């Protein structure tokens, strides 16, 4: 997979993306601090590729996905999709661009309008972009629903009549209807039972093959990410700490945080005994992240340099990027 992706064209390029959320307080609502949700993150995604993004809650995964589509305005940085800078676009261009970039939301119970039949929901994007005639839009909607395994009679039903897995498939259909090139999947299976998770994952994979889609797949479950991704990025407290091909990352994780994450994954077999890396304490507050390497407060192998200087995100091996002083 590494060799083929190298030849492919880069579809999405993220350069030095920064997002600080202001914290306001007091009568005048003055900004008293900033939550450093995403701090200087750069990576790219090639055409037809799936990049998985993992990390604990609050590490900025979702914020990256949302700023990339400009659902949240960035503080600074660039996101270049198909050669155009998304952050420099004005409303009409952005609307045009959004046809190519869609998102599947985390919670299928909250992301569909409860008062809209799901067919209408799926058609909404088509109507906004005035694609084809009314009849064509209706047919396209039915075709999209079929792709995710739903039938015509389903289109007149309301979200509450569907199970979680079906709702997530409706969410996929909604993103797919506009025939985008790039889809941000924000924890698409974490709200679902295991017994149907793989059904949704399989649909995502099949659609990728059929339409040549490019995914940014955000999740906290490392085993799920392994099944769908070509490359995997690991986030910690607003920083990207490691990025590598799936094979390399799971075979030889280089960052101590990635190693701890890997060792925490449960294996459903009690006969396997493993050495576990237990991290002390909690993730520090992104309001006031530690100086130097942000992970040094919990790192089992930290040296004095780690608390002083921030490690650069470097390519230590071909296609294997790490931000750690000890990995060089």
């Amino acid at each position, binding site marked *: 997979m590494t060799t083929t992706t190298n030849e492919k064209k880069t579809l999405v390029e993220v350069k030095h993306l920064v997002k600080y959320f202001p914290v306001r307080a007091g009568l005048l609502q003055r900004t008293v601090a900033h939550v450093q949700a995403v701090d200087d993150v750069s990576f790219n995604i090639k055409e037809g590729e799936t990049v998985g993004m993992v990390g*604990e*809650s609050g590490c900025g995964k979702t914020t990256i996905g949302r700023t990339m589509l400009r659902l949240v305005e960035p503080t600074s940085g660039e996101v270049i999709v198909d050669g155009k800078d998304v952050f420099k676009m004005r409303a009409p261009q952005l609307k045009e661009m959004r046809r190519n970039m869609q998102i599947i939301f985390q919670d299928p119970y909250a992301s569909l309008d409860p008062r809209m039949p799901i067919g209408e929901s799926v058609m909404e994007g088509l109507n906004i972009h005035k694609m084809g005639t009314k009849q064509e839009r209706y047919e396209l909607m039915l075709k999209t629903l079929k792709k995710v395994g739903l039938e015509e009679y389903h289109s007149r039903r309301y979200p509450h009549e569907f*199970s*979680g*897995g079906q709702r997530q498939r409706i969410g996929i259909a909604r993103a797919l209807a506009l025939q985008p090139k790039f889809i941000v999947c924000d924890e698409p299976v974490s709200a679902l*039972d*295991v*017994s*149907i*998770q*793989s*059904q949704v*994952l*399989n649909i995502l994979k099949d659609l990728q093959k059929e339409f040549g889609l490019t995914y940014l797949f955000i999740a*906290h*479950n*490392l*085993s*799920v990410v*392994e*099944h769908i991704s070509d490359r995997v990025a690991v986030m910690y407290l607003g920083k990207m700490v490691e990025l590598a091909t799936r094979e390399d990352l*799971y*075979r030889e994780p280089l960052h101590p945080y990635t190693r*701890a*994450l*890997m*060792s*925490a*994954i*449960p*294996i*459903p*077999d*009690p*006969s396997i005994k493993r050495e*576990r890396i*237990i*991290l002390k304490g*909690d*993730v520090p507050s992104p309001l006031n992240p530690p100086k130097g390497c942000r992970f040094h407060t919990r790192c089992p192998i930290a040296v004095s340099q780690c608390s002083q200087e921030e490690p650069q995100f470097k390519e230590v091996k071909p296609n294997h990027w790490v931000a750690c002083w000890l990995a060089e």
Partner: protein
Amino acid sequence: MSKEKLLRIENLTLHFNTQKGPVQAVDGVFFELGHKEAVVVLGESGCGKSSLAKALLRLLPRNVSRYDGKVYLEGTEIMGMDDETYRRNVRWIRMSLVPQAAMNSLNPVLKVGDQVAEPMVVHHGVKKEEALVQAAKMFQHVGVPVDFLDRYAFELSGGMRQRVAIAMALVTAPGLVVLDEPTSALDVLTQANIFNVLKRLKHELEVSFILITHDIATSSELADSVAVMYAGQIVETSDARSFFKEPLHPYSRMLMASVPRLRANIEPEFITGQPPSLLHPPTGCRFADRCPKRFSKCSEEPPVFNVESKQVKCWLYES
């Protein structure tokens, strides 16, 4: 059964009244649990797992239409007790609960130390100072710094709040703790930490656990035995070792196959369809509609068959 088990549940049933008719949330549940053991109750959402926890601790809502069966705790039948006897002798004395979303179940306006001490004051009638000493001891057991006693729930992270909820369930030294989805809202690293705490507590405090969860992979860390629940019924009970190696019931098999595994090139599978409504569960085997191995007999309800030391509710194991 030569040795007295800690807990034996026979035919436990809990039905709710709704406008649409009775919901058979727990229907003839059975399993056993020994001292210092952990049993995992596995199942998908809506299969009655949490109702089972409520039925065991008798934390019932008002719309209960049927609540019967037999539960033997250290040999004494507890279902026949009246509510006051139950409250005085069982709940939080011999059996306690870590509720689902325990992180959000703490009182936001009370210090966590006071909350952990409260069961001691209420159930054992000790003075508050003594209870706080006990609470501090429990904090050490679950790995919360003792100076957190004076903090409020919102000052604690998710993992710490979960530990506090566990401390609250353990403070009166019950022999059995029911954990309802203790880690499902937490990150992998925190999950691993909590499970290490539970494993240690099992040895240190000689307590037994009923772990109710849908997370098969995580539960395997703690389990000594497994009970699989489907549509309100137990379809398989087994010891953990042979269950995780090779489950018997077709539902358990498909559930195991749906777990994505690390560094394995096996594609996870999925179960088509969804669990039946507990309002009008199908007659016959409740899994039959989704079962790849169904045959003519499945339209009748299967009894429970014994296969070696395991029990399976499936016609395939009729001998």
